[in-house]
């Protein structure tokens, strides 16, 4: 019987939330779901999938495309060939999915954010051109593909409660050509942006390093913490530890006050769960306005100046 095989990500032993999106997509497509994981305890998965397949590999060995392909070959022998291999769209998914597709000779669709079924068959939706376009993709040779699934886009199909079988994957000989050595933590500095109630976050619109102090002052006057989007950290205008987004920190403050941030998905993914998002951008068509609860079309520098003036007056 056909099924979808979800290759799940753990980090430091922790089951990652992003794994649920491929699982829910599998439910929506209507395939039984088998989840493949490294060594660990996965009681939380009971009821949510058909099989939990635990590989006899440590996390560092498992999160490795070269070992995964060997594991897949053995898994297919044991459980049959799946119709879909699904992964979360993250640093792990994007490491493994293309490689697996190349080795198996299967098509690949990454960052899947929608699915529909109609006269044209099964359609997978993926955004193109910085979120400005939705592309509708069809598999030319039917349901057999590798996909990564965007975090937080597929809802849980409410009535699905499954009888979950726990199985062991066959052991493999590890590929010696790629080795995990160690994790490296970003140096921890005095401020932890993930713990702030109010983040004043600046993006590309800040234009130059010399403008940072203005927003530092604004953040200080408001009693918030200054964070930034990737372009700002890339240019070392603020430390990497201040960066919000997929490649930085994921934050959930009470208020996320974004100034001059256009709203690239990588950034949105790191802040969309904030209680309230206020976005300031001079471009009224900036994508961030689609995610923000409140929007202000204004030059961030002008607005910050004015806010600082008002706040100083009040003090």
């Amino acid at each position, binding site marked *: 019987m056909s099924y979808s095989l979800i290759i799940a990500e753990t980090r430091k032993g922790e089951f990652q939330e992003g794994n649920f999106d491929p699982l829910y997509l599998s439910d929506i497509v209507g395939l039984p779901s088998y989840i493949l994981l490294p060594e660990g305890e996965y009681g939380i998965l009971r009821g949510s999938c058909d099989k939990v397949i635990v590989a006899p590999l440590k996390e*560092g060995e498992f999160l490795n*495309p070269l070992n995964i392909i060997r594991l897949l070959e053995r898994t297919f022998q044991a459980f049959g060939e799946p119709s879909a291999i699904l992964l979360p769209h993250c*640093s*792990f998914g*994007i*490491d493994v999915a*293309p*490689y697996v*597709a*190349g080795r198996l000779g299967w*098509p*690949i*669709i*990454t*960052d899947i954010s929608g699915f529909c079924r109609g006269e044209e068959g099964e*359609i997978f939706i993926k955004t*193109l*051109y910085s979120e*400005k376009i*939705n*592309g*509708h*993709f*069809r*598999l*030319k040779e039917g349901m057999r*593909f590798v996909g990564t699934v965007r975090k937080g886009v597929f809802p849980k199909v409410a009535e699905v409660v499954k009888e979950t079988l726990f199985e062991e994957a066959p052991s493999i000989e590890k*590929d*010696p050509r*790629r*080795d*995990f*050595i160690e*994790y*490296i*933590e*970003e140096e921890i500095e005095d401020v932890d942006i993930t713990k702030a109630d*109010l983040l004043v976050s600046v993006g590309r619109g800040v234009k130059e390093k010399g403008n940072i102090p203005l927003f530092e002052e604004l953040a200080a006057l408001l009693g*918030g913490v200054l964070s930034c989007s*990737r372009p700002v950290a890339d240019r070392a205008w603020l430390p990497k530890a201040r960066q919000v987004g*997929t*490649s930085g*920190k994921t934050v959930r403050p*009470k*208020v996320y006050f974004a100034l001059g941030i*256009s709203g690239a998905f990588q950034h949105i993914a790191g802040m969309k769960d904030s209680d*309230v998002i*206020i*976005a300031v951008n001079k471009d009224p*068509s900036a994508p961030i306005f*689609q*995610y923000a609860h*409140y929007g*202000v*079309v*204004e030059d961030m520098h*002008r*607005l910050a100046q*004015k*806010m600082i003036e008002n706040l100083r007056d009040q003090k």
Partner: protein
Amino acid sequence: MEVVVLAKWVPTTQEEELKIIDEGRSVDLEEVPFRMNEWDTYAIEEAVRIVKEHGGVGWVISMGSEDADTALRRGIAMGLERGVLLETEEDLIDPFQRAFIFKNLLQKKGIKFDLLLTGGQAEDDEFASTGGVLAGLLEVPYASMVIGIEEISGGEITLLRELEGGLMERVKMALPAVVSIQTGINEPRYVSVTGVLSAAKKERDFLSAADFMEGAKGLLQLIRVEIPPPKEGAEIIGGDLDGKVSGILNILKEKGVYK
């Protein structure tokens, strides 16, 4: 060291209001300026540095219309030596197919590499897949989202992959290998217009992608494109500058983050 970079010439759509044409099948890019995919500038810079340190030859390879020659010229102007363009007027979006064509090129032309670099993703389709698929097809080691190359010696490469939440992993791989590069790994050098013009005098190979299609069938079909439905947009705080400022301060007070 033979280092190959795959670079893509992409439309700069971030600021554009895009239009759909061709009965919903394609995006009108007629008036949109193109540029080197941002990730690829980092990959090229990294390749230039590696070749400088370890010797050897750096290649830049691109696929696209004849305009994509500019990607080769920019790569050469940055310091790579050889350029190959696989010309095609077809919009080949399937990363599996693209990777297969690159594989055919490398094998048929006997281009051997120790390291093949790609940008982490292309700005246009954001598949982030061509390098990985190519590594799979060639059965060589692969690592994506690489934010640091620490050492290359004894047929091995030690690198840092960028993970989520400020975490990185250190990985060691055997060469030859394929690596996809994250922005921020280096500071790409500027390429002057004069530099790009003089790179035009360097020899480049212009080949037809059609000659490398053997077995490279498209497995994925883009049947439709659409402008995403507008999401529940933000409530716009309008008025003059004072009104905007007090509007924001009121929300901050309501949420209890500013007293």
